[in-house]
């Protein structure tokens, strides 16, 4: 308390003292004034009366000139101590007698005027003039002078009395006020002390002692009531703050968790520690069985799980446990589980948990679980607790929902990223495909003469040595593979194979071919580097027949062998193995397994997982990253399976598992090659590639046809029109598609414009793309891909010679077989 401020005690005492002093002073002053006034009046009256009496007695003395007697008469003034002087004047106004006797006449007025009786105060004296009359005659005048000694004496007495009174009254007032003040101020001071204690210690449990007086008692009661209110509201506030903190902590703890179980465990753990609760369990709704499944419990609750039949995954029927209300979104509060007959609550009661609250968890208005919390005491959950649990359950539900959303988002993000990668690869493949198309065109053009001449040699030169014939056959097969490889380049930018022509092939035979084709890589080149690769074949005794595009399979195997050789930098064993797995009852059908095993460096897990991704390579500049991708593409197109076993340092095994041929239903049979040559025809050849032009001309002439070769589109058109107008029209026109300035389309248009019946065969070096897209240009009767196979050419010419329009099937099959 501020010491400079006057204390209540002091104030009260001062008030009482001042009041009583003022009252006493006022009273005494008025008494004093009254006394003064009355004293003066009385003095005047007394002096007047005395003067009159003395004057009356002085008449004879004056009348008979007896000054002695007059003075005797005047001695009567002795009776009044205040009268200090008196004198008688005769009728002429001259001094006659004085009192006290012998007083010098100078003490009195020398002369007096005749006048009425007057008494007045002059200074501190009362002065009176009283005429001396006898029978109406004025005999003289009496002069009286009285000083106010008496009055001042009396005033002094009064003053003393007043001082004493004030002193006494003050003392009395002080004593009384002390008593009163004690009764008033002590309750107030006690209130103040209580208030100070409350504000200093924040202890709202203290109470002011009851006061004796009614008003102060009321004040104290009101104060105590206020304290009680503050205490209770402070308690509520503290609880709410605690709850809020807990809620915040929990929310913070679970906000970045995406795992529902972890979220639940954190929440329940926090509740166990801080709310606190004795048991906490999260239940998850199993929508199928409409029951709640025990999901997670708090760390401290683990011990009770078994006793409560709430092991993870334990199911609780909602209907037989009275939990239907919870599903409807209501918070279930059970103050005493012993009174309930539901098995869940009975278990809880047996385990000693008597109060239970079950808070539902809702995500987007859908019930998905509940929080079950229990305490040992009965009626242990207050409404504040319930409110808190309700809020908490909302937060938890939100967090759970967020976790789910987060996971969904993560999934979507991953999908998107994969899609993006796929799109990017697609784009790269498309670019590559376009490039490959150009390359394919040039390669096809380049190998066309080789193909034509090789085929022609094998067909016509009967006296070829067996060795030459075998070499020529190998060349022919290699050319076919080159053409096939070029044709498959487009697969890099094509999502799906439009149509795959499968034929029944014996994989054992294919493997032999591949070994032959790749001998340079696995035998010759390693030997040059001084290492040895031991090639072993473990082929099945029975034919390993599958339905497949042989070229693709061959390519795939070639790739696998190349990879195996590359992996064995220090040499090793390359094993090619085929296994025929017959169909059994459980399996759907038989399988043919090809294994390519090496004893090379092997792959670690990461590499193994990524090895079939396009453009993924471990070979640096040397590798395209497309080998295994092509293998995988082949496997997919053949509904086969690819397995990779690898161990770093031990080696790698690639396993291709094909369905057995017997099981393959969809197969397109090879058309038997038409080995006949049509009757001689007049043929116009148009191609800007002189080597191809020359080889085609040679081959066709060998077949007995009359061939006119032109080396540009415009020249072809001119030649055709010229001979047409000359009446020697061509029976068929074979034109290249891609030519500078005037291309095959314009040539075809011009030919059909002049002679609609003349068939036009178009050769295209753009691989099979054009054909696959069914993009047969108008005015063209047949499209043949480069390098043209002699057989295909002959078949087409034979058809046109017979005047037949090629059927769709025949055309498509002719087209597809490239």
């Amino acid at each position, binding site marked *: 308390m501020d010491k400079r401020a006057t204390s209540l005690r002091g104030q009260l005492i001062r008030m009482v003292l001042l009041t009583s002093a003022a009252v006493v002073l006022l009273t005494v002053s008025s008494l004093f004034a009254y006394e003064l006034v009355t004293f003066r009046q009385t003095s005047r009256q007394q002096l007047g009366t005395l003067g009159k009496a003395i004057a009356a007695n002085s008449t*004879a*003395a004056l009348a008979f*000139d007896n000054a*002695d007697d007059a003075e005797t008469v005047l001695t009567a003034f002795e009776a009044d101590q205040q009268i*200090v002087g008196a004198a008688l004047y005769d009728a002429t106004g001259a001094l006659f007698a004085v009192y006290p006797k012998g*007083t010098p006449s100078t003490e009195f007025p020398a002369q007096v005027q005749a006048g009425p009786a007057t008494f007045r105060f002059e200074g501190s004296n009362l002065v009176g003039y009283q005429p001396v009359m*006898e*029978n109406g005659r004025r005999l003289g005048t009496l002069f009286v002078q009285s*000083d106010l000694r008496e009055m001042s004496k009396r005033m002094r007495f009064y003053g003393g009395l007043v001082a004493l009174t004030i002193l006494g009254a003050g003392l009395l007032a002080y004593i009384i006020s002390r008593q009163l003040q004690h009764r008033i101020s002590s309750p107030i001071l006690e209130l103040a002390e209580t208030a100070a204690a409350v504000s200093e210690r924040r202890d709202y449990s203290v109470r002011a002692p009851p006061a004796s007086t009614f008003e102060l008692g009321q004040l104290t009661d009101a104060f105590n009531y206020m304290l009680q209110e503050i205490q209770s509201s402070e308690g509520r506030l503290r609880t709410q703050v605690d709850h809020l903190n807990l809620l915040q902590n929990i929310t913070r703890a679970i906000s970045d968790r995406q795992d529902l179980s972890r979220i639940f465990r954190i929440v329940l753990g926090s509740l166990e520690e801080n709310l606190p609760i004795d048991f906490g369990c999260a239940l998850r709704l199993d929508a199928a069985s409409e029951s709640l499944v025990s999901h997670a419990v708090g760390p401290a609750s683990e011990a009770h799980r078994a006793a409560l039949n709430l092991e993870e995954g334990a199911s609780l029927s909602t209907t037989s446990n009275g939990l239907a209300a919870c599903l409807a979104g209501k918070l279930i509060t059970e103050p005493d589980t012993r009174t309930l007959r539901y098995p869940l609550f009975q278990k809880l009661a047996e385990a000693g948990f008597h109060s239970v609250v079950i808070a539902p968890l809702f995500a987007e208005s859908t019930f998905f679980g509940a929080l079950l919390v229990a305490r040992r005491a009965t009626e242990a959950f207050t409404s504040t607790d319930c409110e808190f649990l309700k809020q908490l359950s909302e937060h938890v539900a939100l967090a759970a929902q967020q976790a789910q959303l987060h996971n969904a988002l993560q999934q979507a993000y991953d999908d998107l990223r994969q899609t993006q990668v796929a799109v990017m690869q697609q784009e790269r493949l498309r670019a590559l495909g376009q490039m490959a198309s150009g390359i394919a065109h040039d390669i096809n053009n380049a190998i066309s003469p080789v193909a034509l001449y090789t085929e022609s040699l094998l067909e016509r030169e009967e006296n070829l040595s067996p060795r030459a014939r075998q070499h020529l056959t190998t060349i022919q097969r290699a050319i076919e593979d080159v053409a096939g490889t070029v044709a498959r380049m487009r697969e890099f930018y094509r999502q799906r194979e439009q149509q795959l022509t499968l034929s029944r092939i014996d994989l054992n035979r294919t493997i032999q071919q591949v070994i032959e084709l790749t001998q340079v890589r696995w035998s010759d080149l390693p030997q040059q580097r001084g290492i040895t690769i031991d090639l072993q074949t473990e082929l099945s005794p029975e034919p390993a027949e599958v339905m497949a595009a042989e070229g693709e399979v061959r390519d795939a195997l070639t790739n696998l062998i190349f990879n195996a050789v590359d992996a064995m930098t220090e040499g090793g064993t390359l094993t090619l193995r085929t296994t025929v797995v017959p169909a059994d009852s459980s399996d759907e059908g038989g399988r043919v397994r090809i294994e390519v095993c090496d004893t090379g460096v092997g792959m670690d897990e990461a590499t193994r997982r990524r090895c079939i991704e396009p453009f993924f390579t471990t070979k640096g500049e040397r590798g395209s990253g497309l080998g295994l991708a092509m293998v995988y593409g082949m496997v997919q197109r053949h509904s086969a399976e690819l397995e990779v076993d690898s161990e770093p340092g031990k080696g790698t095994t690639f396993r291709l598992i094909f369905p057995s041929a017997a099981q393959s239903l969809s197969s397109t049979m090879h058309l038997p090659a038409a080995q006949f040559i049509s009757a001689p025809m007049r043929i116009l050849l148009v191609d800007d590639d002189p080597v191809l032009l020359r080889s085609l001309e040679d081959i066709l002439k060998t077949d007995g046809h009359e061939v006119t070769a032109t080396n540009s589109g415009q020249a072809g058109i001119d030649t055709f029109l010229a001979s047409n107008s000359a009446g020697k029209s061509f029976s068929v026109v074979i034109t290249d598609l891609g030519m500078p300035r005037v291309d095959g389309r314009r040539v075809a248009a011009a030919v059909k414009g002049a002679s609609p019946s003349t068939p036009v065969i178009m050769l295209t070096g753009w691989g099979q793309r054009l054909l696959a897209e069914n993009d047969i240009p108008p005015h063209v009767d047949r499209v043949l891909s480069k390098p043209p196979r002699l057989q295909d050419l002959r078949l087409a010419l034979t058809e046109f010679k017979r005047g037949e329009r090629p059927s769709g099937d025949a055309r498509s099959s002719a087209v597809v077989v490239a």
Partner: protein
Amino acid sequence: MAVLTATTSSVWGLIRRLTLILLAVSTLGATAPQEYQVKAVFLFNFTHFVDWPADSFESADSPFVIGVLGQDPFGSALDDVVRGERVNGRPLVVQRYETLADLKPCHILFIDRSVRGDVTRTLDTLASRHTLTVTDFEPGGARNSIIRFLNEDKKIRLRINVDSAREAGLTISSKLLRPSQVVGNRGAG
């Protein structure tokens, strides 16, 4: 002027007395009539301190009579004193009587020493006649005048015989008795 010491008082008293003596000497030194002027005033003043019964007047407006018996020592002084004065509404009259024989009823009678021989007789005559008898000598007989002037210390003093006054049927104011010598039985009456 509060309290004078005894010494001071006596000194002042002495001075005052000397002054009075000087005054008296001077008065005496002038003429005898000075004394009678005072006595004339006294005679007039008696009218104020003595009550005369109503039957001493013939009528309601009868004058108040002051008589002088014998040789008049006052000269005109007495006349001067009473001139214009009234007593209880009555006019004042001065009458002079040569001898006893001339004497007429009057309310105050100054008996001059010139009729000293007749004074006893006169007094006897007037004994019960409501007349205030005044002398300035000692009559010497059985009967005294009611008031006698005394010369005392140069001042004129009065001696009042209350018996004579009672006999004359007059009431003398006690005031008058105060400054005077009183003889006779004051209490009886």
